[in-house]
């Protein structure tokens, strides 16, 4: 019964991207551990939601459908999740590091008195030996995350408590359909029986949600292109690389003016300022107007056929050559080395 669990968040009537990414990761972890993947959706008007979720490899889907469960408020969702955990006793429980997940997961962890790691960038299965007690633990979840303003990378484990809980930001994990024809089983959570009036102290009076916008600022990896990319078709290569690495595409002003990219992707003085973990500047010469918006990136890779381009001076790595040549190789070797 000790399975992997994913809390699926509903965003404008659909399963949130981050939840699908977590299901993808959860399926892989379940395969590695030889257990099942379970998930829960809590909300209202959820009929047919399983069709979105099963292809990601979910074996058991728990659904709580009640008018009072949407929009999200903390206490009823936390109550239902805790109740479910007490029944199904998951080994691992994953939540999106969203406004909802970061509100819900700590409340649940506190109630369960179990460990929770926020904003993990990597989740891996591994063993552990406690040096003091000599006790050995098999197949723990290594929860890897940056801390201390990104100056350290910490590997956190929860040896004794279950579930091992973690949150992960949108875009950090890859999203991949496991099997289009995969079918799980549906279990109804009897929300009406479980929800009591005292769980609704917080009343939502008003809500204004904006449409999903491109937010390159929040992306840990940005693949950015300049005028030197040469064409809209070549910009497609940047999209591919960004997608494979789990990043967003940015652009210099010259590239936006040339119509290669939308204005909302513009980085620099007249665009947005970004500080990603990795900034890949493709065909960008490195004029100060551009570098003002990205020079604080933790790592910079410049791809340029001009060895004298100023961007090379602030880059950690300068690759000299053509992007048509280099980007497909980066994709190829990234895939090879992560396999």
């Amino acid at each position, binding site marked *: 019964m000790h399975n992997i669990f994913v809390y699926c968040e509903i965003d404008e009537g659909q399963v949130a991207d981050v939840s699908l990414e977590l299901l993808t990761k959860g399926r892989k972890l379940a395969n590695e551990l030889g257990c099942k993947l379970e998930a829960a959706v809590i909300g209202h008007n959820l009929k047919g939601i399983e069709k979105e979720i099963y292809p990601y490899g979910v074996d058991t889907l728990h659904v709580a459908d009640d008018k009072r469960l949407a929009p999200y*408020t*903390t*206490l009823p969702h*936390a109550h239902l999740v805790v109740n479910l955990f007490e029944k199904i006793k998951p080994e691992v429980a994953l939540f999106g590091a*969203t*406004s909802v997940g*970061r*509100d819900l997961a*700590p*409340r649940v962890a*506190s109630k369960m008195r*179990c*460990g*929770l*790691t*926020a904003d993990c960038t*990597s989740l891996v299965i591994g063993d552990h030996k406690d040096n003091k007690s000599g006790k050995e633990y098999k197949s723990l979840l290594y929860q890897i995350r*940056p*801390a*201390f*303003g*990104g*100056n*350290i*990378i910490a*590997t*956190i*484990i*929860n*040896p*004794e*408590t279950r579930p091992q809980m973690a949150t992960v930001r949108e875009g950090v994990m890859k999203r991949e359909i496991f099997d289009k024809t995969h079918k799980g089983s549906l279990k109804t959570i009897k929300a009406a029986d479980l929800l009591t009036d005292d769980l609704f*102290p*917080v*009343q*939502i*009076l008003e*809500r*204004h*949600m904006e449409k999903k916008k491109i937010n390159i600022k929040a992306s840990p990896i940005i693949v950015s292109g300049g005028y030197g990319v040469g064409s809209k078709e070549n910009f497609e290569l940047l999209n591919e690389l960004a997608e494979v*690495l789990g990043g967003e595409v940015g652009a210099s002003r010259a590239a936006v003016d040339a119509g290669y990219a939308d204005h909302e992707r513009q980085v620099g003085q007249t665009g947005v300022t970004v500080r990603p*973990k*990795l900034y890949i500047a493709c065909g960008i010469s490195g004029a100060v107007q551009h570098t003002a918006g990205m020079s604080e990136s*933790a*790592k910079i890779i410049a791809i340029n056929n001009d060895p004298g381009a100023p961007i*090379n*001076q602030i880059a950690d*790595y*300068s*690759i*000299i*050559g*053509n992007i048509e040549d*280099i980007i497909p*190789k980066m994709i190829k*070797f*990234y895939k*090879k*080395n*992560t396999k």
Partner: protein
Amino acid sequence: MSFRIIVLAKQVPDTRNVGKDAMKADGTVNRGALEAIFNPEDLHALEQALLIKEERKDAEVILLTMGPPRAAEIIREALYRGADKGYLITDRKFAGSDTLATSYVLSMAVKKLAPFHLVIAGRQAIDGDTAQVGPQVAEKLALPQVTYTEKFTEIKDEEVTIRRRLERGVETVSTPLPALVTVHSSAAQCRPRNARLLMKFKHARTISELQEETKDYTEMLNNKPYLQIDEWGVSDIDAGEEQLGLSGSPTKVKKIENVVFAAKESIVLSSEDNDIDRLMKELIDSHVVG
């Protein structure tokens, strides 16, 4: 009865400004060399409490912080800005507490200050960025929680209305009191120190600090008892030792890797297969991608 507001705050190393002197020779951060500051979002939390105090004459703002003895610095900072009183929760037994153990300690301290109307904290601290302590304290105290607060739009005796800043929008909610609220960085900036309050509280000290002082504070404290900052340890808050420090922390740190910031000296690569292969391996191994 006063309208009691307890502000939870943390002293943190300033991870946003890692200057040259804070870098060790190997390119890793010397954490000891970072300046200790009032956690930024906790200052926003304090401001919300002070705004309520302006509106309600019966409001009383108490700052509560858990940390080493030097964390008394942020209590003085809060007093200079208008807080009425501060408590330092400090004990060697708290060392190694994760968010769960920390929220247990804070919740026990808050209980000591009951009855109260609001507990207000910053959304998250910049050293860990977990945003977990607020909701966990709320759970331990069985209080409703309202996270990501941008503004209190209405304060009544038994209910508040709050505007919340979500990732992609805003939401206005009401909650009965008492409640726990966490404050987002989009909320109002904290006011600066007030000169009169600075004069009034500059000699405020905890017991541990008084032991270090060469000056005799006895007479001053007798005349001005408000200069005594209360210090609480494990026994003062009736905490169970099994729930604090390392033993009360379900999460363990297995490994810490320092992110190495090398001096900017570009490594020049060609478009040859072996160069690109090596680059992608390095990026994956150093967790930059993957």
